């Protein structure tokens, strides 16, 4: 029987394993040196904050793996011999595979700053990073986070729960503004500062200064400010983890190069998830795209191929979500930081409630191209359909309640949003489609 070996037990590798098991009887082994069982990496912050324990972050109970005949091996692989299809572990052990799926994830970026290897300086990606952060922050009176992205704000939130003051260095002139348009970026920036984080915009790390024991004691910024701190969180992004694959036959560039079928240049070797670089990315998709669900979809796709139905990776309309302290963010379609030439935009914000909605649409046919929601939950299926249908913005606004996903009794913002649009477009006012009343809803 064919032996499928999956390197990496994150969402990509585990999804592949589960789907291969669904459709086949192959022998499946998942290897990871990080943890014995699959856990949700996105929940690391909640363990630190005391919302959950490690065991709660495991999406499947421990019996699941044996029951589904998915063998787990906790070990670090040292080298891969692609010619003989052999994995060499850090121990003298080896393992043969018939087909190999590389799902080895990312590594954190470090840009060669002086002092970046000091004790007390770290990123947050793996379970080991979490343990390290626990140790590193045990007796800390102030911390600096470098990098204005999602991990950075998570680390800031984590540290604040331990009453550790945080200074947040952001290279851009506002928070995450390489992804978020100006208004949203400002909204989140304000929210971050309200929580007591000292935000240093247009500021980069210059060097990290050690004390006599080789621990960080301060950092210096590019604006020549020196900030005392005993902890530095590096959150300037991640890159595909290629450490195992240097100087092998496997073709890599920024990531492991794969075609649309997630096949590498070597036969019987596939790659999925964060470690992948697509040779021909789909329209509106980046070649390296490190998102939870893209890893999951790649796992589902490669499982089809392994089980005999060669299937191309086809993510649909872009979507993503995040949470910045208390503000939830959801996005569907394309809402780039800079508005494309052919598009127009409508932005509404309720400043007091910190709720915002942005709709991007084409100038020519008014078709919806993307949406950002802040502090408002939006229905995925509905926006996915509207974007595919190229629904004109006027109809989207008139029927906005269909995409409403906030809990019952929450304030409804549709009237405010439509009124705001009408104020901005007095010549083409919109009338909201009448919403069903209580009795109609009761029996709908």
């Amino acid at each position, binding site marked *: 029987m064919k032996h499928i070996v999956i390197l990496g037990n994150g969402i990509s590798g585990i999804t592949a394993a589960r789907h291969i098991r669904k459709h086949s009887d192959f022998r499946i082994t998942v290897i990871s040196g990080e943890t014995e069982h699959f856990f949700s990496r996105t929940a690391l912050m909640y363990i630190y904050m005391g919302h959950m324990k490690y065991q709660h972050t495991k999406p499947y109970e421990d019996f699941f793996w044996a029951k589904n005949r998915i063998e787990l091996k906790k070990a670090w692989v040292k080298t891969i011999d692609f010619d003989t299809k052999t994995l060499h572990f850090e121990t003298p052990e080896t393992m043969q595979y018939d087909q190999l799926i590389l799902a080895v994830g990312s590594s954190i970026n470090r840009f060669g700053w002086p002092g970046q290897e000091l004790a007390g300086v770290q990123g947050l990606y793996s379970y080991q990073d979490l343990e390290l952060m626990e140790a590193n922050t045990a007796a800390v009176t102030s911390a600096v986070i470098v990098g204005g992205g999602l991990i950075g704000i998570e680390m800031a939130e984590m540290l604040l729960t331990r009453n550790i003051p945080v200074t947040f260095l952001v290279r851009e002139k506002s928070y995450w503004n390489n992804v978020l348009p100006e208004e949203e970026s400002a909204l989140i920036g304000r929210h971050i500062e309200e929580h007591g984080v000292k935000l240093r915009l247009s500021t980069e790390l210059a060097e990290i200064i050690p004390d006599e024991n080789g621990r960080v004691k301060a950092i210096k910024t590019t604006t020549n400010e020196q900030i005392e701190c005993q902890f530095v969180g590096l959150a300037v992004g991640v890159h595909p983890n290629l450490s195992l694959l240097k100087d092998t036959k496997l073709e890599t560039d920024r990531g492991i190069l794969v075609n649309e079928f997630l096949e590498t240049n070597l036969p019987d070797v596939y790659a999925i998830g964060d470690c992948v670089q697509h040779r021909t990315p789909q329209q509106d998709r980046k070649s390296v795209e490190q998102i939870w669900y893209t890893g999951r979809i790649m796992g589902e796709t490669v499982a089809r191929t392994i089980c005999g139905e060669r299937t191309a990776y086809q993510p649909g309309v872009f979507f993503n979500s995040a949470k910045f302290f208390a503000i939830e963010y959801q996005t569907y379609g394309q809402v780039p930081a800079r508005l494309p030439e052919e598009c127009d935009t409508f932005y509404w914000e309720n400043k007091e409630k910190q709720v915002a909605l942005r709709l991007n649409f084409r100038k020519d046919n008014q078709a919806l191209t993307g949406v950002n929601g802040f502090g408002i939950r939006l*229905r995925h299926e509905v926006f996915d359909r509207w974007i595919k249908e190229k629904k004109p913005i006027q109809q989207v606004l008139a029927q906005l309640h269909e995409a409403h996903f906030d809990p019952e009794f929450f304030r409804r913002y549709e009237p405010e949003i439509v009124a705001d649009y009408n104020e901005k477009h007095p010549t083409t006012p919109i009338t909201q489609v009448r919403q069903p009343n209580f009795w109609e809803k009761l029996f709908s």
Partner: protein
Amino acid sequence: MQTIQKIGLGLFLTGFAVWIVTLSLGQFVLTENALKENLKPEHYELIRPRVQNIIGQTYSTAFGFGNAFRAEVETLNEEFRSAQKYDQVIYDNYSLPVAKASSQGTIIQQTGLWFWLSFGLAILGAFLYILPNRRKHPGIKNDHIYHSPATSRGWIGIVLGSFLILFYIALYFYPEYVVNWIILVDPLSQALSGNPASQWFLYGFLYTLAVVIMGIRMLIKYRHSPYQMLRSLSVMFFQTSFAFLIPEILIRLNQPYYDFKNIWPLDYDFFFEFNLNTLISNGTLGLFMLGWGIALIVIAVPIFSYFFGKRWYCSWVCGCGGLAETLGDPYRQLSDKSLKSWKIERYMVHGVLVFAIVMTAFVLYTYFTGQSNVGPIDSYTVRSAYGFWIGALFSGVVGTGFYPLMGNRVWCRFGCPLAAYLGLVQRFKSRFRITTNGGQCISCGNCSTYCEMGIDVRWYAQRGQDIVRSSCVGCGICSSVCPRGVLNLENADPNSRVMIAPELMTGNEMPKIG
């Protein structure tokens, strides 16, 4: 913690300590009058000679007094039993009223002072501890729940759980031990119903206090969520009025004691002959109560559960649910999420439902035929077994005593026969479901962790399947704690519930096979 919160905690603990100390205050001296006024004449004749040695003796604690008195009655009963004079055995619990009548000293003389030094200080302290949380930013606040020994089965949780268990055992089986606590609430009971307090009045008072104070804590904790606020207000309202005040006022008006929101089979003695007789003999209002009670069972439960799921009762109206959602909120994460516990839950909760139905059938058979035996089985034995094992031990001692150890819905999940009935409607014929938002789930596990009913919500969310589970009480916390806006409690056409996980979730455009 802010200074004011530390002061609040200090005051609360002081009030609590005073309350414990009141148990040892005063002394107990049995008098002729205390016996005469509290014993039925036929029992007085029997007991009076037995307690000759106790009369006039000073006991320094309720334990000593209660044990001495109880031992004498027990000896008497033993003699009846060995002489096979079963009809003479005394089942009335005289220990509590006699202890109450025998109490002397400061607790009787300065009842108000001790009331305010215990309850007053504790309530003030609780508010000082809870209210400053308003200053925090609104939003989910679960920080350090698994770091705190109170909320992660640490030593505080174990101590608190042990206290609650002992409290329930005393309340149900040895109320004379806590007679001083009952004396403390006597003035309040007199003011409300005109009657002296029983242990059940003490319990109702504490229960309502817990629901209201911890309900205010919920209102602050979830002030960003109108769903959670309305739900908390609802359980606070139903507990204070329907469960606590209205029944007391009914007594004052010489009407039957009745909790208009309690539904059989949770209200397991609704069809007991003492209750039926009371209702039938109390004119129009009594008959209305009987009709109302039956209508709740046969009309309200199926109809409301069809439209809204069982949440309309379990997390908006019910008293047990009210306590779980307020006092129990800090412990919701302690419920077991394993598949094994789900299997146990299904056997247990439906087992109790069957037990309740069979027990009630026996009760009604006896009521209408006058026969106490159904075949070889004694209907009185069955109902008293139910009352002891389910009514007292399961719903009280285990149901609440185990909050800090097994989560706040132990009774509702494993034992409540009404929850089982509501759950059957919810599972098989209801518009209610929790929907999952396309492909947004990141399997973080907050939803499962904070599900008080032990539902592995994430299992469904990560595969795009609606959560349709008979146990779900619709508290909505999974939706509240979800960081990605994935979960939503919805009512719609029952046929639109996604009962089987879609082959592909939204966002994956590869061709379908199935």
